[in-house]
């Protein structure tokens, strides 16, 4: 049984087609990178998969059960969604913010248990933000903030994590750290779908890539297969240098294919 399987996702917003009859599947322990240009529907796909688009719920099966058949709380215990932007409307402490990830596991009126505190301490350590535990979120830098929000999603201890650009704004060291963490989590059975713009890291860490463009999936499968010169030109309109260093994939954009192509896209 697939961890999550979606078929026939067709999504329109205000008359504009975002996705047209897209299918998507992920197995337990799989780490999938979602790539594609701005506006190609990566976030929309992620929102649909997490059950936020109510008219798509029937098309998505999670652990063999349609999303529309789930009690919201039950689903929230198993599936975590990390939105883009890392917004926090109040300046909570880092610890309290990460603790929000434990909410789906609590009964009404129940406070945070010892186990909850232990899990939060662990995820704060995993994301390298435990030194800020007592600080308020608005005193942190963008990258530190991103790691705190990731820890919030991990605190859910989900079976499937849907993360929208979790490493955007992180320094190279912390990018590698988070990708390593994802790899490790997927090894222990968690499914991870992650929107990512760094093609080199995507190629190096993800088991599988899904390339979105032109309202559909242009290509999907093994990273070396998806990140071909032809696909990169079609999807991003770029010419890229693709090679290997120490056996690790390297994808470096060199130039735009043609300015005419970009203009015609607009």
């Amino acid at each position: 049984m697939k961890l999550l399987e979606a078929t026939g996702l067709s999504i329109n917003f205000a008359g504009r087609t975002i996705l047209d009859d897209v299918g998507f599947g992920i197995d337990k322990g799989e780490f999938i990178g979602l790539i594609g240009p701005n506006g190609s529907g990566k976030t929309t796909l992620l929102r649909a998969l997490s059950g936020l688009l109510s008219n798509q719920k029937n098309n998505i099966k999670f652990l063999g059960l349609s999303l529309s058949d789930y009690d919201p709380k039950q689903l929230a215990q198993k599936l975590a969604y990390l939105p883009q932007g890392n917004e926090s409307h109040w300046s909570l402490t880092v610890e309290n913010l990460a603790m929000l990830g434990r909410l789906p596991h609590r009964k009404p009126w129940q406070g945070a248990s010892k186990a909850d505190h232990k899990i939060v301490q662990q995820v704060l350590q995993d994301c390298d933000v435990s030194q800020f535990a007592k600080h308020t979120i608005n005193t942190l830098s963008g990258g530190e903030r991103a790691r705190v929000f990731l820890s919030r999603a991990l605190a859910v201890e989900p079976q499937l994590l849907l993360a929208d650009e979790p490493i955007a704004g992180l320094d190279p060291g912390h990018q590698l750290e988070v990708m390593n963490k994802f790899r490790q989590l997927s090894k222990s059975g968690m499914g991870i779908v992650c929107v990512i713009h760094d093609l080199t890291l995507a190629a190096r860490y993800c088991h599988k890539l899904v390339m979105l463009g032109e309202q559909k999936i242009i290509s999907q499968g093994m990273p070396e297969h998806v990140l071909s010169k032809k696909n990169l030109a079609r999807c991003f309109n770029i010419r890229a240098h693709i090679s290997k260093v120490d056996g690790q994939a390297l994808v470096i954009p060199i130039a735009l294919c043609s300015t005419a192509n970009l203009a015609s896209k607009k």
Partner: protein
Amino acid sequence: MKKHLAANGKTEQRLFTLLLLLLLITFFVSLFVGTSHIDFDELIAVILGEGKPSVQLIFYEIRLPRAILGLMIGITLGLGGAALQGFLRNPLAEPGLIGVSSAASLGAVITIYTGLSGLFALALPLGGIAGALAAVLLIQLLAGRNSSTLRLILAGIAVSSFASALTSLALNLSPNPFVALEIMFWLMGSIANRSFEHVFLSAPFMVIGWGLLLMQAKALDALTLGEEATQSLGFNINQVSRLIIIGIAISVGAATAVSGAIGFIGLVVPHLLRRWVGHKPSTLLLASGLGGACLTLMADSAVRLLSTGTELKLGVLTALIGAPFFLMLIMKTQKDLP
């Protein structure tokens, strides 16, 4: 460095102890203060079930219901303000924003205008509660079932303006100056000369409202992360918003129905206490409720102490102190605002 570290469990505990202590003191002071002087010994005697019948009468018929109403209305305003600020994620929201206060006022004013309030005393608060309930229905109708927060606020503002306009119309068309004056005085907000009947009438609505609001504590915490993240944490946003609107409407509506509009408490108190609960919306609910009760009781005692001849209205005093105080608070906490 130290000021970047926010409140922890211990400061929270201290805050709640302090608030409860302050509440006890303000409640007692509220029983003690009034036009007819009661000695401290006499007051204690009456509380213990002894004392002169005349003093007992003042205590049970005038002072006690007034203090209880001050307590309950204060909790309602503080709790309602904290809940709405948390829900809208906006520190400038106050319970009147969604139109219930104006609608409750209108309902009460209509009973004065038609002379119904003269026929039996409870017509006025009943009219107020009817007005508040009508406002909830109207807001739900205007905003639609799957309402966004913005639509909800806009619907509230529309209801509020329309109710205020109708209240002005009632003033405008009032048959004689005495009715107009009565309406105007009532609109200023006061809990003077209320009886236990007012308490019994409004208390159930307020208590149910508190329950509905306190039940949303976890959802309010989750809303710190925005609506989509809240939904992904297993909360039904539409249900949360409906329950918060209804909770505020019936509690604040019932409070307004017995007291008239008392401003600024629902706005200032959450603001004042937020930093002491580490900005946590859930903890702020209860803290703000207790703080609202303290402030209302203090203001109501001050009204009695300051009055010479014409009684100063509670709503006038809260606005008079509240507005500059709020301004000062904004200047001081500008850095803390998100």
